[in-house]
């Protein structure tokens, strides 16, 4: 059961400032959405929170301890485009990779992760034989196999059809109800936001934070964000 807290994070690529003064708290057992336009810094923020990159300013804590040594407690599911889906590997082979760096590797963990995302029946199927939605669930299962307590998902619903998106959202809702902390970046700030407990709107800095209703009302005053975008 873990709270992830970021305080005054700033980050730039060279001279270009990407994130400014970001503070947020992800509470245990909550499902939080991170929404914002392209180039808002969503992926960069997720990488900072996972410890892949070091913020130029600010600090990240995991239950009051600095993230550094505890970064294995935070797992990141990458964007779909960063995966080579034609790689010769089965679904269970992919999920087992989640424990690639774990001290104690266990086949039970792979099995349990597959069960959580409802892919046990497809465990022996090759990855490129799965549908887009099934592939995303397989990638989520690999992330779950990492023995982490905070899960950062980078645009997991991008390119999914509405039924697959609904199914995916229902799975991550169950994860949050089971006590895991789930933080999901998305382009979608339409009705899909209602599936989340909290929403953070980002455009290089935090524009709004609260329940979906609260954020929507705040966003109405920010014309530059546009109306509705599905991704």
């Amino acid at each position, binding site marked *: 059961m873990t709270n992830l807290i970021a305080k005054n994070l700033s980050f730039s690529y060279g001279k270009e400032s990407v994130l400014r003064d970001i503070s947020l708290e992800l509470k245990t057992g909550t499902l939080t959405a991170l929404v914002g336009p392209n180039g808002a810094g969503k992926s960069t923020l997720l*990488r900072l929170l*996972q410890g*892949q990159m070091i913020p130029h300013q600010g600090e990240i804590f995991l239950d009051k301890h600095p993230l550094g040594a505890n970064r294995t407690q935070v797992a*990141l599911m*990458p964007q779909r485009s*960063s*995966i*080579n889906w034609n*790689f*010769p*590997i*089965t679904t269970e*082979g*992919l999920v087992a*990779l989640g424990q*690639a*760096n774990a001290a104690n590797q266990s086949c039970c963990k792979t099995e349990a992760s597959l069960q959580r995302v409802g892919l046990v029946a497809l465990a*022996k199927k*090759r990855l490129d034989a799965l549908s887009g939605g099934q592939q995303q669930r397989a990638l989520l299962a690999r992330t779950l196999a990492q023995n982490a307590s905070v899960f950062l998902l980078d645009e997991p619903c991008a390119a999914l059809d509405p039924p697959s998106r609904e199914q995916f959202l229902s799975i991550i809702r169950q994860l949050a109800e089971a006590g895991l902390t789930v933080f999901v970046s998305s382009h979608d700030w339409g009705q899909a936001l209602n599936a989340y407990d909290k929403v953070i709107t980002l455009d290089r800095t935090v524009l709004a934070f609260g329940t979906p209703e609260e954020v929507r009302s705040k966003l109405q005053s920010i014309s530059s964000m546009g109306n509705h975008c599905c991704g």
Partner: protein
Amino acid sequence: MLQVILGSWWIYPLLMTLLVGILCPVTGALLITQGRLLQANLISHGVVPGLVLAFAIGIDPSLGGIISGLIGALTAERLALRRKEYGEAVINTVLAGSLGFGVLLIPLLKIRIDLESILFGDLLAAGPTDIIRVSIATSVLLLLLKNSYQNLIYLGLDPEGAASIGLRVPRLKFSIAVVTSLVIVSSMSAVGVILVIALLAAPGLLGLNQAQSLNSAMIRSAGYGLIISFIGFLLAIALNLSPGPLIAVLCLFSLILSDKYILSKATKFLLHK
């Protein structure tokens, strides 16, 4: 009996055919899954200046070839980093430049060297030294697979994720480049540095089809490679043709024959006739 066999003119060429027919496809399957076949093509051209220079100063040509192949690969990688969107163009430029440099060195250093056998192979001239070179390359490849199999899967499947879980990605990529150079240089006498690409690519592609794991893809690729090389060797002797180009042509044919669309069209055409 053993002496008679070892004394036969065909034994080393045949052994070389079988070994290269396994080694190149296994390496090829790995390179395809890592998206590094273009780099292998670059290395295959990049070894030429090193081979020529080593020959000129009287050291083992394969050593020069490995070093210059690696220099070519590292140069291309560094230049491509600055032009990420045009990485392919950078690699092809380094590839052509390296080969050109190697060809120019021959008259400049005033040496006599059979460029054709370097580029296209001279399998029938293979000897014990070639077998030793292939055995060294095979051992290094097996060592890489034994120590880093899981990491290679991670890197090929999710390069960004590999870095994020703490894998030493640059070191792993360099190891792959070293193995590639070794394989290319050691296969030189069989199919030549240019045609080795055919043996790296085609059986690898065939082996990857439907394979459930990288392991099984490599084994299947080795099987296809062995068959193609052996048939190529026999045909070359029967038809009195150069084995290297013949093996490359067989690679192309096997790829065409494995294409379901072409195969179904050809079957329909033949049945109609």
